[in-house]
């Protein structure tokens, strides 16, 4: 079982190294095979670990395995250790499973690209980093995985490095994430200082003994990292720009796995957050705000991938909300179902984009249900799962979170509950707006022409269609792992690692389900009505402007931070760098030349001058000798 976990961790690393080292000696297709096969091998390892864990008793399900001691300073020790417990087993399965499907898909999507090998090396690097993150047995190793996924994200967003927009987006993602990394690192410093250890289990045992301020600061630092990585407000600005990367990247990193790392952290470190309840509630509030803001912005986007990106941001808000109120099992459950249907949506969108020759503007799409029937079905399933209509996956997971909010009961609980319901309405509206715009109606002129051009290809190669199909099946039935009131294998499994703080009653569950389904259908109908009348859902010009500018966050940050920093660096360059440093270097150079010119004059070549010099120095030396005696 432990071996399975290690294989799960190291197989993608091996794949990445193999592709990097074999470089030009393997074909592009072989690179894709290496990446896909190692990721599925990781999935096999994860299965072994999972079943190994399952076969043990419930109180024997926490296993630490250390490879070697990495750091040792006095009493403080950090090892390269992985933790195999129910939570990490689930995350391993999701990451390697969905990851494997997406890497397989990208063999078809990225075929023909000049730098395919680099792509697959980066993808394997990412899978390894994410697995390291979820399997880490101590905070330092977690931070290492955290940083590496950030690196992989940067490399993959900027994969088409000749596009300036892609490069700018990659930088933005890395820099915003760096803010979160900094708070995370500070939290780790506090942990070392106050508890003397970084092992997850060790830290959790010590948490009760810490002062209030310390725990609050640590939790705040961890939350900062989570907010940045999961693109929640206020560190969310990088996610829409990250859509510059190839579609499989958007599916894997910015929907299914990396952005959920923040949720994983909130659940994993729940003892710390439970000891700092204000911060935990803050997480829930941030989640609620994000889910509303993102939902509103998604109503006015024209790029198909951006709509799905904002949808991701919104759904992760739900997960943050769930983790913030203590519904750990449901937060992770929603994480898993979201991975299924969001990856499905992205991959299906990828088929559409590929089919239309890289067209991403939905105003130029339409009526694709005839040209892409199977993709149409898949996309529909994904949309319905996202909105949360039964019996598809999102229904079971999202409503469970909403019911937990209701079950909380206090003022915060009611606010969160209302926010969740509004979010459901928005989700229905924007997702079906997207669906209708892309697949229904009459095919657009340009779209029709381009579609004709590609009809020979059919909907796409098998490598693209099979993963989409598998994900569609998962999005359809994946939610059945937790039926309220009937059976809860998934949540019970995860909750071994963290007891939930709230439990909804059966009545609350049914009530919430009914309301949210109703709201979802209302959203659908609103979208349909707007589509049939060829109008947009948001017509008021001010509202449109605010939503379109994403609530002016980018402009705010630009004015607050970027302009100040840029101004400072320009001023420094003008006042310090050029006049002082550069010029002084030049002066040193020309001074040296002047000095050497002057000295060169001593080499006159005249014999008599040399003789004179000798005579003079001899007389001086005589004086010196005599004086010394």
């Amino acid at each position, binding site marked *: 079982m432990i071996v399975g976990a290690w294989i799960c961790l190291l197989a993608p690393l091996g794949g990445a190294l193999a592709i990097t080292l074999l470089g030009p000696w393997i074909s592009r297709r072989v690179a894709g095979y290496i990446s896909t096969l190692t990721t599925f091998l990781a999935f096999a390892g994860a299965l072994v670990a999972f079943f190994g864990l399952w076969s043990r008793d419930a109180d024997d399900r926490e296993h630490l395995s250390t490879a070697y001691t990495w750091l040792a300073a006095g009493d403080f020790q950090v090892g390269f250790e992985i933790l195999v417990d129910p939570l990490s087993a689930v995350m391993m399965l999701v990451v390697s499973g969905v990851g494997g499907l997406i890497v397989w898909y990208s063999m078809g999507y990225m075929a023909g690209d000049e730098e395919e090998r680099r792509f697959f090396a980066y993808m394997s690097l990412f899978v390894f980093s994410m697995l390291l993150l979820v399997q880490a047995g101590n905070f330092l190793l977690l931070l290492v995985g955290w940083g590496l996924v950030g690196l992989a994200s940067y490399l993959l967003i900027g994969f088409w490095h000749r596009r300036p927009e892609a490069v700018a987006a990659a930088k933005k993602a890395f820099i915003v994430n760096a803010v979160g990394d900094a708070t995370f690192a500070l939290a780790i410093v506090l942990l070392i200082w106050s508890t003397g250890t970084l092992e997850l289990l060790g830290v959790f045992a010590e948490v009760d003994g810490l002062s209030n301020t310390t725990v609050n600061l640590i939790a705040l630092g961890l939350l900062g990292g989570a907010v940045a990585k999961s693109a929640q407000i206020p560190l969310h600005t990088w996610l829409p720009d990250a859509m510059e990367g190839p579609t499989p990247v958007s599916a894997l990193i910015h929907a299914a796995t990396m952005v959920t790392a923040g949720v994983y952290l909130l659940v994993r470190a729940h003892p710390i957050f439970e000891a700092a309840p204000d911060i935990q509630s803050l997480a829930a509030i941030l989640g609620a705000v994000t889910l509303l803001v993102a939902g509103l912005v998604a109503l006015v986007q024209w790029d198909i991938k951006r709509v799905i990106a904002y949808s991701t941001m919104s759904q992760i808000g739900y997960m943050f909300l769930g983790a913030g109120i203590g519904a750990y099992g449901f937060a992770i459950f929603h994480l898993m179902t979201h991975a299924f249907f969001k990856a499905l949506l992205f991959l299906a969108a990828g088929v559409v984009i590929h089919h239309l020759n890289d067209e991403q503007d939905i105003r130029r799409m339409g009526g694709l249900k005839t040209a892409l029937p199977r993709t149409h079905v898949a996309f529909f399933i994904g949309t319905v799962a996202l909105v949360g209509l039964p019996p598809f996956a999102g229904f079971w997971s999202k409503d469970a979170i909403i019911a937990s909010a209701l079950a909380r009961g206090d003022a915060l609980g009611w606010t969160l509950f209302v926010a969740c319901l509004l979010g459901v309405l928005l989700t229905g509206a924007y997702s079906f707006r997207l669906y209708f715009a892309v697949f229904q109606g009459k095919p657009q002129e340009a779209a029709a022409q381009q579609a004709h051009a590609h009809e020979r290809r059919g909907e796409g190669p098998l490598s693209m269609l099979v993963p989409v199909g598998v994900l569609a099946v998962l999005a359809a039935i994946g939610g059945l792992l937790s039926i309220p009131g009937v059976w809860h294998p998934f949540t019970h499994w995860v909750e071994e690692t963290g007891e939930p703080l709230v439990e909804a009653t059966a009545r609350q569950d049914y009530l919430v389900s009914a309301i949210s389904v109703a709201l979802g259908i209302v959203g659908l109908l609103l979208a349909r009505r707007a589509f049939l009348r060829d109008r947009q859902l948001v017509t008021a010009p001010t509202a449109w402007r605010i939503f379109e500018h994403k609530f002016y966050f980018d402009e705010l940050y630009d004015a607050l931070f970027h302009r100040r920093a840029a101004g400072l660096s320009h001023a420094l360059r003008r006042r310090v760098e050029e006049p002082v440093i550069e010029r002084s270097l030049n002066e040193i150079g020309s001074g040296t030349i002047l000095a050497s010119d002057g000295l060169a004059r001593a080499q006159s070549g005249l014999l*008599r001058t040399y003789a004179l010099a000798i005579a003079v120095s*001899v*007389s001086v030396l005589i004086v010196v000798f005599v004086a010394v005696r």
Partner: protein
Amino acid sequence: MGNVVVWIVWFVAAGACLGSGIAVVSLTNPFYSALALIGNLASLAVLYLLLAAEFLAAAQVLVYAGAVMVMFLFVIAYLGGRADAPWAGGSPILQTAAVVAAVALLVEVVVVLGLAWGDDLKDPAEVSDAFGSPAAIGELFLTDHLLAFEITSIVLLVAAIGGVVLGTTHERVDDVGAGHARPLQRESGERPL
């Protein structure tokens, strides 16, 4: 009485020495300068005799005045008119500096001598009559200072070879009269020397 004679001889010789020295440096015609130097050497030989260095005085006259100066006079005669160069040149600063330096040297030495006049330079050692005789010098050369003797001979050999080399010319058969003498000349294609 002998003392006075010695002093008179000394003054004459020293005066001739210094006077001829100044003459060497200041006369324009190199020929006259060389003749003045011969006078200088002769008066130096007298001074050597006063210092009980008979062999050296003889060697000075024979070698220096007899051979070296003759060689000088030969060369000056060969060069003829080309030996006339401007008396001196260079910036006035350099000239003044040269004079100052030379005077400074002299003054310094005098000062040092003055300081040591009473102590180190007092009584010259007692010497026998054989002091400075050819036998004594020859014996030293072949025993204590054998190395210096041998090395000096090698130096003379090298100088002789050098003189011969400097003097040879390689005139090409088809280039007679070109006067471009370049010893150690290597034609392209020839094996290097």
